[in-house]
């Protein structure tokens, strides 16, 4: 037996090194079947599918640079006197955290660049998650079976905000200290338990001596750890569900049309990582972010104007800035509504986006799987809701930067505040109406295009003198893309009486659902697609234009 095998080996020669390594690994890890199943995994191609990748890569960049920063950062609030190379800070008292951030900026090799990459990447990370989330929202990619993955993504965005906040609080500079003071106010505004929470979190009166040391593990370990787990789950689900695709010829709910992971997407994604890294590195090399050396160390008796958080928290800042300073005094206690209402509104507005998939599936009653994306115009109510939400978000960002709008556009900060107060309620309504109208207009245009073809811009003069524009019929593929979407009927409560003429019991929620469903699928929301008969009638008639 053994001689036979030896002969066999001699005859074929030794297997190549790569094969032997693969064999060695496979016999221990069993990766062959895993790789076989996934290496040829197909992904569809579209630029908007790469927005999540931008977020992923900036997250990796944040982790890499963050590790470098931990080597030099001292999360301590003990007081030191600065004697480093930055002259305007000579002899200034500051916390060790701030001093070590100055050291990272001015003495550690490459420290300032890495700090800036870390911070710029954080802004890009949140922005990319935001844009990615909006892509998923407007194309309806959150529908079954992807609702859980939407929640994972939403949680990642929310945790990203928290991680960002704890991160820019660490240097203990004047701006971040003001932010922590703001958060103290937020905690204090919570009825009954506010004072206890504050004392618990800060370890005593603000600012105390513990806070930075407490935020540090939260920022470098706890939150990124949870995020990493969620991220892996997010990606596993993307693999498991397979990627969605835009409607088009040959694309169905049962297939994925695209390129295989290996080699095409490995090459593309790998290259794209370096492109993202390059953009962030260039940004960090040319533009300052968070110049703590001019902002100065935190002291509770100092504050600077223009004290805003990073952009992803600007929305919360706006809510607090424009809220009237209402207070209720009862039994010797103060309820600070001016702060408490905004901090309740903050998660409410965010959650409106987070739970949207469940609301929509309840309204539409659609429990089927969807792998073909919606064109936003074909879901006017959803699209309008999304734009309305974005409007509220943007209006609040304006509120968060009201002082800079005032100085840069020579406006009164009071007028801006009032504009934001009204705009927060009115803006989304107007945006909703306008967006729905635009969507319906686009649906009508699609219908016209299907029936009459594309306007070529060529003007023809007929023998009797009439001028007509030549319309070019669409290709089969284009016709498919414009007409493949479904136009479901709205949910109806049914007759009010049963077959015996007895009034049926109809729940209020059912009525609400019927009403909402009509706004999604009613006549006001869908321009009827051209039917086969209409199409044939128009295209068969010659000379029609």
């Amino acid at each position, binding site marked *: 037996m053994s001689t036979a095998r030896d002969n066999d080996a001699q005859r074929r020669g030794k297997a190549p090194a790569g094969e032997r390594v693969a064999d060695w690994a496979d016999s221990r890890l069993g990766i062959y079947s895993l790789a076989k199943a996934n290496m040829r995994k197909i992904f569809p191609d*579209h*630029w908007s599918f790469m*927005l999540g990748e*931008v977020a992923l890569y900036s997250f990796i960049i944040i982790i890499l640079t963050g590790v470098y920063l931990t080597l030099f950062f001292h999360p301590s609030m003990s007081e030191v006197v600065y004697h480093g190379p930055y*002259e*305007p*800070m000579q*002899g200034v008292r500051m916390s060790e955290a701030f001093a070590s951030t100055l050291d990272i900026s001015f003495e550690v090799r490459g420290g*300032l660049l890495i700090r*800036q990459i870390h911070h*710029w990447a954080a*802004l*890009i990370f949140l*922005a*990319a998650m935001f*844009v990615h989330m909006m892509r998923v929202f407007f194309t309806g990619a959150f529908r079954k079976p992807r609702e859980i993955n939407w929640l994972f993504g939403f949680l990642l965005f929310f945790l990203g905000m928290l991680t960002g906040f704890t991160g820019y609080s660490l240097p203990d500079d*004047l*701006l971040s200290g003001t932010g922590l003071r703001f958060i103290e106010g937020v905690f204090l505004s919570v009825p009954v338990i506010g004072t206890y929470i504050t004392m618990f979190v800060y370890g005593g009166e603000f600012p105390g001596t513990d806070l930075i040391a407490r935020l540090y593990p939260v920022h470098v370990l706890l939150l990124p750890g949870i995020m990493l787990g969620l991220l892996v789950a997010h990606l596993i689900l993307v693999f498991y569900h397979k990627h969605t695709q835009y409607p088009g010829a040959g694309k169905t709910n049962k297939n994925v049309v695209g390129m295989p992971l290996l080699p*095409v997407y490995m090459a*593309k994604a790998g*290259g*794209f990582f370096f*492109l*993202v890294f390059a*953009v962030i590195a260039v*940004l*960090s090399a*040319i*533009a*300052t*972010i*968070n*110049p703590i050396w*001019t*902002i*100065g160390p935190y*002291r509770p*008796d*100092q*504050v*600077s*104007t*223009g004290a*805003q*958080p*990073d*952009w992803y928290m*600007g929305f919360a800042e706006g809510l607090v800035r424009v809220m009237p300073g209402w207070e209720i005094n009862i039994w010797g206690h103060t309820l600070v509504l001016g702060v408490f209402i905004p901090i309740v509104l903050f998660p409410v507005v965010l959650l409106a986006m987070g739970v949207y998939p469940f609301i929509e599936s309840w309204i539409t009653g659609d429990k089927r799987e969807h792998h073909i994306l919606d064109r936003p115009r074909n879901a006017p109510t959803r699209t309008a809701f999304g734009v309305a939400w974005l409007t509220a978000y943007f209006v609040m960002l304006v509120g968060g*930067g*009201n*002082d*800079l709008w*005032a*100085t840069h556009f*020579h*406006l*009164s*900060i*009071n*007028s801006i505040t009032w504009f934001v107060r009204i705009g927060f309620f009115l803006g989304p309504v107007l945006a909703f109406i306008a967006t729905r109208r635009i969507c319906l207009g686009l649906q009508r245009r699609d219908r016209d295009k299907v029936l009459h073809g594309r306007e070529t811009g060529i003007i023809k003069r007929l023998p009797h003198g009439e001028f007509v524009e030549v319309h070019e019929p669409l290709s089969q593929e284009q016709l498919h893309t414009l007409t493949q979407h479904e136009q479901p009927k709205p949910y109806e409560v049914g007759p009010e009486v049963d077959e015996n003429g007895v009034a049926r019991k109809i729940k209020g929620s059912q009525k609400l659902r019927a009403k909402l469903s009509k706004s999604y699928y009613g006549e006001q929301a869908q321009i009827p697609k051209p039917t086969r008969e209409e199409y044939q009638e128009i295209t068969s008639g010659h000379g029609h234009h």
Partner: protein
Amino acid sequence: MKKLSARRRHPLAALVVLLFALAVTGGLYAAFSPSEAKADDSSAQSLAIEEGKKLYAVGCASCHGTGGQGSSDGPSLVGVGSAAVDFQVGTGRMPAQQPGAQMPKKKKVYTDAEIEQLSAYIASLGAGPSTPTKSQYDIEGADVAKGGELFRTNCAQCHNFAGKGGALTNGKYAPALDDVSPKHLYEAMQTGPQNMPSFPDTTLPEKNKQDIIAYLDTVNSDKSKTPGGLELGGLGPVSEGLFAWVFGMGALIVLTIWVAARTAKAKKS
């Protein structure tokens, strides 16, 4: 004494006494009266006041009243001192172009000599802080770090941590402090123009004012270093966020489109 007394009727005695008296009065005058140069100065001063009054009557009186007593359109200028005039007129804020929330800085209307005359006139209306001399706002040997701390404690809440300015209520604002001359910085602190509180020497001694000026000279002037690259206005996270969205996210979206457009094509056989 006898000798002197014997000669008191000498024909030249009167002359001697006269000469003596003249010498004494002259000497006393020379010793006690202001020096001759000062006498010239004071006449120049009164001339400046005179000229300043004329300028005032033409350019300022319509709002501040004919005697600087103020009116419904402008505050009283009695006791504001020459430093206030030098600041307001020297930075072009006065004369005001139109009523508004706040008088903006603009090109100055009067020459330096005219500003001095106006200052002299206003100073003559009542005692107030006078235009600082060069040595007062000289930043040689000032403590930049101390200035930074003072700036963050007293100035940053309106002017921003780097002196880039900020908003106040109802369209008023704390202006950016870029390219403000040391003299005007000093005068602003001394007199508290428009919405600014004043920081007289009793609260912020001359030395501390110099420290602050030196700090601004280090962090907010042509020669300030920006180790991190572009400052983005020095306004903090708002401009950073805008930059990240427009240039960072903008570039990345362009790249996604570029990468997606370059894909492996299936071979057609």
